[in-house]
């Protein structure tokens, strides 16, 4: 199945901004994080289709997965 993966801030370094990727059924957000060689402990926020999600959440076809490091401002 096809999923759009978006990365932000320092996670883009030597990776990408947005990419269509193919995964097998049952893939979770943390599987994607590990596949991209991102340390899960450095992940601040994950979202699927603009909603916050747990790293253990299973992704579905055509989902948009967003992965952010810990960031803040205001």
């Amino acid at each position, binding site marked *: 199945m096809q999923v759009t993966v*978006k990365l*932000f*801030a*320092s996670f*883009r370094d030597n990776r990408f*901004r947005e990419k269509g990727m193919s995964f097998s059924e049952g893939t979770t957000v943390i599987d994607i994080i590990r596949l991209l060689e991102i340390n899960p402990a*450095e992940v*601040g*926020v994950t*979202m699927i289709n*603009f*909603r*916050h999600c747990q790293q253990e959440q299973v992704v579905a076809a055509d989902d948009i997965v*967003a992965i*952010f*490091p*810990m*960031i*803040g*401002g*205001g």
Partner: protein
Amino acid sequence: MSKLQTSIEDVPEQWMGLGGRGLTSTIVATEVEPTCHPLGRRNKLVFAPGLLSGTTAANSGRLSCGAKSPLTGTIKESNAGGTSAQMFAKLGVKALIIEGLPEDTSKWYSLHIGELGITIREESETLGKGNYEAIQMLNARLGEKIGVLAVGPAGEMQMSGANISVKDPGSRIRSCGRGGLGAVMGSKRVKFISIEPTKNKVALADADAFRAANKVFTNAILSHPITEGLAQYGTDVLVNIINEAGGLPTRNFTSGQFAGHEAISGETMHDTIVERGGQPKHNCHPGCVIRCSQIYNDIKNEYKTSGFEYETIWALGADCCIDDLDDVAEADRIMDDLGIDSIETPVAFGVAMEAGVLEFGDGKEVCRILREEIGKGTPLGRIIGNGAASVGKAFGITRVPVVKGQAIPAYDPRSIKGIGVTYATSTQGADHTMGYAIATNILGVGGSVDPLSKDGQIELSRNLQIATAAIDSTGMCLFIAFAALDDEKCLPSLIDMINARFGITLTADDVTSLGMNILKIEHNFNLAAGFTNKDDRLPEFFKDEPIAPHNAIWDFSDEELDSFWNF
């Protein structure tokens, strides 16, 4: 200013434990008639450094400024970095209170504060000048190390969006931005306040304990992961995450996502700054270890602006649909130079765009109006310079994003409900910094509360507003709150520093009580000024117009909002 006299008074015993916002709000509530005209002789303008300002405590260089606001009609405190807070504290100045109005309103004045006291002088040279030029003139006249608080042309013209500019270590500009305090300073015919450098040091009751606590505190801030991101990308790192969450108000609050978000994002800003030889990391006051400010150069690699903040970039970018960071930077520079709030003014432009005064996305026209209409005080310039509510009234627009007359900043309250509670109930009109629920609704700091659910939001906003009122009294930058919410060593070390500074024994409960008291003092001032619980509401369009992508609406009942004050 009525008699052009100065006096130096001892600090009343009951105010000794106060600083920053706690002190400005207490003085305003005690000495200003709540029903007075904000630009009349009965209003007072108060400056106060924080409890820890002037010490070596990391990030303690914020200066609070308070008065009754001409924008909101409420009590107001606005704080900024720069060099003035530390200079005031080292001179032993607990607060500066400016009261009365000169009888002859054709004359302007400056105030000069040094070891020998305070003097009032007539001023002409800097009148009509923008802040950048005025600061250079004052450096030449009084020396490079002089501290400066100034109003630009917007403050001279008493526009409700006028701010007070604070000179930073690079002779550039930080701002006490919100609520039109520059208009209050202009009403008193004070163009600038200069502060002499001194070799005096702030006394510490227990220097060793202070040093030890400061070490723990600094480590807590430096080791928090958000600190690193703030330095690299600035506050503008928020554009993409708020957009992704569907909370980035776009095209005068008609959508929660902006198609041009990447062009104005912190990631793009960082790459642009590096490419043009600017500085991604920059501190707004000596002793800041977070360094979220930056130097943004233009296409010729020459300085354009600094302190280029998320809220400003959001307002011009998403809300006005300007997807060109250079146009946004140009507008930011002009606003700093005119001395006008870079949240209120772009939100006012968004309303003007809806009214057809100019097209959405027309950054060049925004810059022209800033220079030629607001800068010169034309009728259109004054309508926009008086803020978003003023534009809505002048042009018959009903989608006007304000609470108590102050523009709603960069987070949509329909899709991030916790911040909506803060906008509605804040004692100072819509202001994200009063209780930054974004931390817990979006960023996963201090726990996690679903941004689209009402559950837990009133309590979250209340706790944050109480804590913020206390932090705003210490002289600390609010960005220490990320570490304070997540690192159990942070807040105790901050309290240890206050205790070591003054030789007292404050506890965490005392600090919470201080925050509660400040909120109640401010709330009571507003009630006496004529505000009621009916003013603690968002504009009705937030209830009527669902916002994409979540089709969220504002759905708090009046009773739920009123329960905020149950403490």
